[in-house]
Structures are given as structure tokens and as C-alpha cells.
């Protein structure tokens, strides 16, 4: 069984995000970029499946500018076998990525697609669900544990108020949650070897996908700063304020 994992190049989680002066987006020039942490979990899970003999090949997919190759290389260094890079410079929204993923899945015929539940830049949480819908495959989102058996996969999902087990028929789409696994560091020898693993490049047109954005970003703003609190003198005053000003009791 082939496993297709999608990896997104995002601003590194350690970087303090700054909004551009013209409020059209966030500053990305000279900012450290890395793989979306949820996608790292997806790559790790796919590699573990291969190590356990449940997957035969792990393909890492990414869409975006040339630099996305670095992100694919990271996946290859962790243990993925080869990469697929859809090269495009414009803004990519979840629906466009889902369509690209579908096109690649049509070609590669994977048994599983694993993606992070969301990316830490736009927090959309849509791509996995959309690609499942486009392919007409079952989906197991927010995976906490995955068990692949013959022809099916059991996914323990993190849902409000607990965990839910679902059994899906393969092929299927899974999105990873934080507690699924702890991704490995790529070993230094494997980083060097990753350079020799192949990365196929495509353009969206080659795949017959129109990636033009459907949504327009109007304005991006910093969250409002926290206002200073006040000190109350008595419990009575506190209760009075909670009741009349905050309206919480």
C-alpha cells in the first residue's frame, strides 16, 4: 500500500508573527520557514506504517514555490521514499490544495492519504476533509491512534468530550492530531542521503487544476493588546462588578 502525505511549508513555530505594514498579510520575507508540525506527525505515522510492514512506499507531497522542496526534503530525510512537488507561486487556498492532492492521488493510487489536521499559519482545518469529499473516500479526522488492517483502518478520533473510534474502508483520508505520535528528528546521515531521493515536479496546469483563490483577504490585523485590569477593594464590589459589568453571574 502506498501512503501519500501532504506537507506544508509554514512560518516556523518559534517565530514571532508580524503583520505587514500595509495589512495585506503577515511578514514572510527573511523569516524562518519549516514543515507544519501537524504534517510532521503525518510523515512520522506514514514512516512507522512502512517500518511495520503495513505500507510499501511513502510519498511526500507539497504545493507552493520552489522552496517547498526543502520541506519535501525534510520528509525524505525523515524516511519518506520520494516527493511530488506542485510548483506554483500564487496564494493557495485549501480547496486548490485538495484538488491538487486529488489529481496526484488519481495518478498514484495510494491506499491512504495522511495530512495534518490543520496548518499553523491559516488554521483552516479544511484540506483533509475537502480531498476526502473530492475523492469520495472515507475520512478519519483528528486521529489520536491509527490501526491499519486488511482493507480497512481503525481511527481513534479526538472529539469534543472524548475519543471516538471509527472503522474506515480503504482507501481513506486521515488527518492527524497532536497526540498521534512524537515525530523523530531526521538523522544527519539521512539528511545527506535525502538529496539523492527523487522529487517529481508538476505545474497545476499539468494536473488540470485551476488554483485561483476563491476567497479574498480583505485585511490582516494584529490581535488587540490586553488591557490592564483593575483592583477591587472588597468581595462585595467584585460580586457587583461580575454581576452588573461583566454579566457573568
Amino acid at each position: 500500500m502506498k501512503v501519500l502525505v501532504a506537507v506544508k511549508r509554514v512560518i516556523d513555530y518559534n517565530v514571532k508573527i508580524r503583520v505587514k505594514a500595509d495589512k495585506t498579510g503577515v511578514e514572510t520575507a527573511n523569516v524562518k520557514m519549516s514543515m507544519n508540525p501537524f504534517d510532521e506527525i503525518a510523515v512520522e505515522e506514514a514512516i512507522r506504517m512502512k517500518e511495520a510492514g503495513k505500507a510499501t512506499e511513502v510519498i511526500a507531497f507539497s504545493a507552493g514555490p520552489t522552496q517547498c522542496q526543502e520541506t519535501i526534503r525534510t520528509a525524505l530525510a525523515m524516511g519518506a521514499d520520494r516527493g511530488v512537488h506542485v510548483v506554483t507561486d500564487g496564494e493557495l487556498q485549501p480547496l486548490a490544495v485538495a484538488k491538487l492532492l486529488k489529481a496526484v492521488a488519481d495518478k498514484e493510487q495510494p491506499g491512504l492519504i495522511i495530512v495534518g489536521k490543520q496548518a499553523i499559519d491559516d488554521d483552516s482545518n479544511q484540506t483533509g476533509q475537502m480531498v476526502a469529499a473530492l475523492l469520495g473516500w472515507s475520512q478519519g479526522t483528528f486521529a489520536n491512534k491509527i490501526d491499519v488492517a486488511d482493507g480497512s483502518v481503525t481511527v481513534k478520533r479526538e472529539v469534543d468530550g472524548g475519543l471516538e473510534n471509527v472503522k474506515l474502508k480503504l482507501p481513506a483520508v486521515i488527518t492527524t492530531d497532536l497526540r498521534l505520535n512524537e515525530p523523530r528528528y531526521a538523522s544527519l546521515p539521512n539528511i545527506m542521503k535525502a538529496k539523492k531521493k527523487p522529487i517529481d515536479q508538476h505545474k497545476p496546469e499539468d494536473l488540470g487544476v485551476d488554483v485561483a483563490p476563491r476567497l479574498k483577504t480583505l485585511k490582516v490585523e494584529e490581535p488587540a493588546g490586553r488591557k490592564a485590569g483593575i483592583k477591587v477593594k472588597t468581595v462585595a464590589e467584585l460580586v457587583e462588578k461580575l454581576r452588573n459589568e461583566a454579566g457573568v453571574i
Partner: protein
Amino acid sequence: MPLDSDTLEQLVDTVGRFVRERCIPLEEQVAEQDKVPDDLIEEMKGLGLFGLTVPEEYGGLGLNTEEESRVVIELGHAAPAFRSVCGTNIGIGSQGLINAGTEEQKRKYLPGVASGEIITSFGLTEPEAGSDAAGLKTQARRDGNHWILNGTKRYITNANVAHLLTVMARTNPAKGGSGISAFLIERGTPGLRFGKPEKKMGQQGAHICDVIFEDCKVPAVQMLGGEAGEGQGFRSAMKTLDRGRIHVAALCVGMAERIVEESLKYAAERKQFGQPIANFQLIQAMLADSQTEAYAMKTMVMDAARRRDAGEDTAMLASCAKLFCSEALGRIADRGVQIHGGAGYIRSYAVERFYRDVRIVRLYEGTSQIQQIIIAREMMRGQKA
């Protein structure tokens, strides 16, 4: 062959992340328990850190001096005890073998050195021979197919856990430096004994101890470089120290950057007179001086490393870098404590620990004074020519 820039950046980035996420959170524990946890050591092995400088054909990464320096700077961001775990395998413990070992010796040991299965150690210093390395007293007497060693080595890093020691001993009492040979001595060789780890000022978690030879019977094939290695030991040792000095200077850069970062963070948080102390110009002066020196250090290390990789003789430059970086690091650590004020004297602040940790760097792998002598000697050699 040098790595392409993408691969090198990814390598450096991965080590940086490992240091930040895995090592730094354990610093206090390591300092308190005087031990780097075994599972972290296993992770370091898995990462490939022990084989940074071992050639690829023997299972290592074969990094050149510049690439090694980049990685070591990252390692230097954590307490130096972590770097010490793999430091001897990267540097003095393996370089002799790589430079002067026979093919058979390399095949036998280097793959294990690269994977971290074999921990190495380097024995040159003695109770009465430190800076005067050529005056070492440990004797090796030929006895058929063996050499019989007698003597004591002092302050030997990682000796307590080493599987393989490169040891300098005198095979010809009549000669000075050229009467010294190097031996590859395995743990468990009869007549080899270790002293108790010393209690040090800093770098808890990294260990040094005496290595004692009492009629230690070493097979003749264990002479570094085989029979032809007789009398070459001192030369190989000195060659090893050249790259080692750049390595130490790179380590200094890493520690300097960390101390600057800690100092800046503290200065931005600590309030006096109603505002962060970073707003005060006298604090700013200290921060700026440290930043400037840290930058100069890095520039110097990178230049020396690149020139060494280009094939230049860098004996003088390596000493310049080691001298400047270790001395500047001492000043930066001192300012770090000063910026922290009273907190800088308290154990729970990293800067207090670094202040003690960095003191050794001006002493080991050649004291500052020895570096000055080497630099001046190289300068004067140019003058005569």
C-alpha cells in the same frame, strides 16, 4: 566533498532544533545529577552526532572543518556537558585514527566511533606534563609482540566511559618529541585502570579522570599507524590539536551566543526604576560589547575553518581563533553575570552555570599562554624566511 547549502542548512537546523527541544530543557537536571541521561545519549547516537568528522566510507558524515564548526556552534547553545558526550569522538578521540591510522585500524574502529558504539578518549596530559606535552613520562617498553606501558595520564575527558583510548607514550627515552608514539588501547587491556572522576568547577555531566598504566600489555599492532607509527605519536597529536582548536573556538561561539541571548532576555524582563533594565545605556553597553565580540568570534572561526578546508596551513590561525574566542567568551560570561545582577550568582539561572562552565576553555587544548607562544612562533618563522 563539501555539502550543498540546502543539505548543510537542514543539518544545522536539525541539530539546532534537537539542542533547543531536547538538551536545553535537561540542563538543570544534568548539572544536578552530574549525568547526561542514557536515553538522550541514545538519541544523539541515532542522530549521527558521534560521526560528524568520520569519513563517509567509514560510516560517518565526513564534514569538513567549516561544516563541523557550524554544527558545533549549534551544540554550544546548550550546556557544554552535552557536546562533551560526543565531543571526543568528533575531535581528539578520532582525529589521530583518521589521520594516522592504518587501513586495518580504521576499518576496525571508525564505524563504531561514527555510530557512537565506541566512545573514544585521548590521553596526552600527565601529572607532570601538561603544557610541556613533549616532556611526557609515560613509558612504553617493547616486549616481543607487545609494548608494556607504565605511567599516568591526567584529566582525561570521557576516559571513565571510553572503549578506545589514543594514548601518547615514550617509546624512545633518548629522544624528545620524536621519541613519542601513539597507541590505540582498548578498555579491558590488562594493566589499564581508571581513577575516580574529578570534582570540577563546572561542566557537570562531563567527566575527566586519571588513566593509570601498570605493566599494561598492548599488542604491537595497536600502535597508531602500525610499526611505521613509532616515533610519530607527538606529530599526530599536534596535528589533531590543530583542527581541535577550531572546534573548541566554535564551541565558544555557541556558548557566547547563548549567554548573549540569556542576558538580553533577562535585561528585557527585569525592571528597575520602573522600566526594563535593557533601557539603560550602561546595560546596553555591556550587551553591545558582548554581541560585538560574539560576532567577531564567529567570523574568526569561520575564516580559519574555511582556510583550513582550502588546504592552507592554519596552525597559527587555529591558535588565534582558540585564544581570542576562549578569552572573549570569558568576558561575555562575566558581563552576562553582571547584567543579571544578584540573579547571576544564583544556581537557577543558566548564566551562573555558564560562568563556571566556560572557565575551562581558556585552559584545555592548550592554555591561552600556549596559544600565544604558538602564534608568536609562527609569526617569527615567517620573519626568518
